[in-house]
């Protein structure tokens, strides 16, 4: 009895501590939601607040709201920060202002995100807090009854059982036995006392009938929970152990994730039938011996779904056991209820683009169990840009489900840097990372002419440069990309070769007073895209930019493609090329964080650039700034 008492006390304390911690952890969210609700109410009632509300959204809250967007949200965050900058500047100067259509659209999106955040909170954290409060109350009532020797009701037994299931980390069955024994021994004297009091009243009233305290309805309260919930749990655990054993594994040795998945099964007898079907009728051990795959089938599939997909797949591969094994190894998810729907929808995409379904499933299995809606959305967008989707699927099929937004962003980057998307002959580059930074690096090495000499081959030339650069780095034991280090470098170089390296190079880190890790982080967190429209806005708002825009940008004497690309992407400081788009992207981010204009411009121009000392001085002089190295934000 003593053991059961201690165990129960320990579990109650543990549960209440967990809830306490949860309340502390979620108090920030609760505070955010209160603030957002105030903003939402003000938005409904105050017409002049429709744009200025953005000033009341703090950066950390903006980050949380942006995270609700699908895909990369950096562009959205940057746009909102820019809007805040515009509003702030104009309000301070007492000027009227009109936001652009796309900025208004972003504000509308932000309003939708506020509502979504509040709803999400109330349906998840908020409702969980309410639910937790109910549990806390139950556990506190149980503790008070035990401390004050009050008689237990059936709900208290259920509460004790819940505590064991949720918080006991050792053998739950033994713990439950000990706790129930303790509760029974605790409750019997109180029950007898209560019944004696009752019978005394009854005898007084009727003066008849003998009393047997154990032949009474309340007595069943003591036994009922043990015969009901705990027995059900014990039966379920036993059945799960039998099922897993039947499939050739030991339940007790499974890892926690698999056990949790199995315990969440609602109808264990259906699962048992399904397990027998898999083993006896489908000879599942021929195709997989992975317990993880089997648990996925047991918990997320059923006989009908499995059979339908199995028929399709085994027909497709002519019952080839080796190939079927591969499918179960890499693509077991297509046999689940959710995965089978995705499979049926995604195979239509493959058929539509006349790709080989057999090969596609073997080579890109997760594509087939992924969200069809997202894939279709991505392909619609790429098609609208002139991408040949069958070729895109050949090159990037396994990347599309998870990284559709990056592919879309890379298309925008290539357009931004003057590539003709419709003429693009290689789509592999669409699946890469840090495309803008790599293009900046090539531009600053003077390779624009080499890349864009023939517009229809620009993509292929870029790709071959990347490959050459990697081989060269391997051969000479050099880092591949400067931008990967997120640090500015100085480099003495003579002549550039077409490997994207100088022929004699000495890498040297920029002196610490010229590099600023805080700035680098700000720049790296920003969007990789900047439109000409945004650049025009920056030029209007920051006159200092005219010093480089008018003085160091190529004049457009002819409208040939190369000149137009150069004019769009290059600044010239003597013989040194600086990426114009890199400069404005970095400048936008630094200015949005309140960095001084002159310092932001110099830092942006030299960011990630390889410069000789005299080149650095020339850039510095051209913007007449002497504040390099100040690191205050």
């Amino acid at each position, binding site marked *: 009895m003593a053991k059961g008492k201690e165990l129960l006390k320990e579990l109650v304390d543990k549960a209440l501590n967990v809830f306490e911690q949860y309340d502390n952890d979620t108090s920030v969210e609760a505070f955010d939601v209160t603030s957002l609700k105030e903003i939402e109410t003000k938005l409904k009632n105050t017409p002049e607040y429709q744009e200025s509300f953005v000033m009341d959204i703090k950066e950390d809250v903006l980050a949380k709201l942006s995270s609700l967007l699908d895909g990369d949200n950096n562009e959205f965050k940057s746009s909102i920060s820019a809007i805040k900058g515009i509003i702030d500047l104009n309000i301070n100067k007492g000027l009227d202002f009109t936001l652009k259509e796309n900025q208004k659209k972003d504000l509308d999106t932000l309003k939708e995100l506020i509502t979504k955040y509040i709803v999400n909170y109330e349906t998840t954290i908020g409702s969980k807090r309410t639910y937790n409060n109910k549990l806390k109350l139950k556990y506190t009532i149980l503790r008070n009854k035990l401390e004050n020797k009050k008689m237990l009701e059936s709900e208290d037994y259920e509460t004790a059982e819940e505590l064991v299931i949720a918080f006991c980390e050792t053998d739950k069955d033994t713990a439950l036995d000990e706790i129930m024994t303790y509760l029974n021994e605790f409750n019997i004297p109180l029950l007898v006392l209560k019944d004696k009091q009752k019978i005394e009243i009854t005898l007084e009233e009727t003066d008849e009938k003998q009393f047997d305290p154990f032949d009474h309805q309340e007595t069943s309260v003591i036994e009922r929970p043990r015969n009901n919930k705990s027995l059900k749990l014990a039966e379920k655990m036993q059945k799960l152990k039998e099922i897993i054993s039947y499939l050739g594994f030991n339940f007790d040795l499974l890892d926690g994730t698999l056990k949790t998945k199995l315990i969440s099964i609602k109808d264990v007898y259906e699962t048992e039938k399904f397990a027998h079907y898999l083993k006896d009728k489908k000879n599942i051990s021929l195709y997989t011996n992975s317990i993880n795959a089997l648990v996925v089938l047991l918990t997320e599939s059923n006989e009908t779904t499995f059979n339908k997909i199995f028929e399709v797949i085994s027909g497709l591969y002519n019952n080839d056991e080796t190939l079927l094994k591969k499918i179960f190894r890499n693509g077991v*998810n297509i046999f689940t209820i959710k995965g089978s729907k995705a499979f049926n929808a995604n195979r239509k995409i493959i058929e539509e683009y006349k790709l080989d379904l057999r090969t596609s499933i073997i080579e890109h*299995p997760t594509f087939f169990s992924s969200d069809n809606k997202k894939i279709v959305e991505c392909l619609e967008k790429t098609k609208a840009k002139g991408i040949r989707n069958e070729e895109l699927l050949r*090159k990037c099929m396994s990347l599309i489900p*998870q990284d559709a937004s990056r592919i879309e962003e890379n298309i925008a980057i290539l357009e931004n840097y003057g590539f003709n998307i419709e003429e693009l002959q290689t789509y592999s580059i669409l699946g890469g990372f840090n495309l803008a930074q790599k293009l900046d690096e090539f531009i600053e090495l003077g390779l624009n002419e080499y890349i864009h000499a023939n517009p229809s081959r620009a993509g292929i030339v870029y790709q071959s440069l990347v490959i050459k650069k990697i081989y060269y780095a391997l051969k000479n034991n050099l880092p591949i990309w400067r931008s990967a280090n997120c640090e500015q470098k100085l480099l003495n170089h003579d002549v550039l070769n077409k490997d994207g390296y100088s022929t004699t190079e000495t890498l040297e880190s920029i002196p610490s007073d010229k590099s600023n890790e805080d700035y680098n982080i700000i720049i790296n967190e920003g969007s990789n895209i900047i439109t000409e429209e945004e650049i025009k806005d920056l030029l209007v708002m920051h006159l200092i930019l005219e010093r480089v825009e008018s003085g160091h940008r190529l004049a457009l004497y002819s409208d040939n493609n190369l000149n137009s690309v150069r004019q769009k992407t290059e600044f010239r400081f003597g013989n040194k090329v600086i990426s114009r788009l890199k400069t404005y992207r970095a400048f936008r981010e630094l200015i949005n964080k309140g960095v001084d204009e002159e310092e932001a411009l110099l830092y942006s121009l030299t960011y990630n650039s390889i410069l000789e000392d005299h080149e650095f001085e020339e850039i510095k002089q051209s913007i007449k700034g002497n504040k390099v190295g100040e690191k205050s934000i």
Partner: protein
Amino acid sequence: MIDYLKKYNINDEGLEQIRQRYNTDYLNYFVSLKDCVEENLDYLKSLGVSNFKNVLLYRADLCFKDLDVLKRSLSKYDIDLVAKLFDDDVEDLINFEI
């Protein structure tokens, strides 16, 4: 759920980054396809790859590929280049049709 990745030198911070990077459905592949993930990562290890965090963050799709397909796509290149790519520039594997 993905703690088994620790044996590939992924620390708690790395695991958290992986959890943040992917949605629930995609993370579930690490559970349902655990055997496949382990085989593929072990194969990369045998080639001298050591930076598994970048593989998991940038190209997790390679962990879910058929091992023979993965071997075939890597066999076209020098083993040192493969190790260098995986460790230093996993983001450009796609340019090698990997």
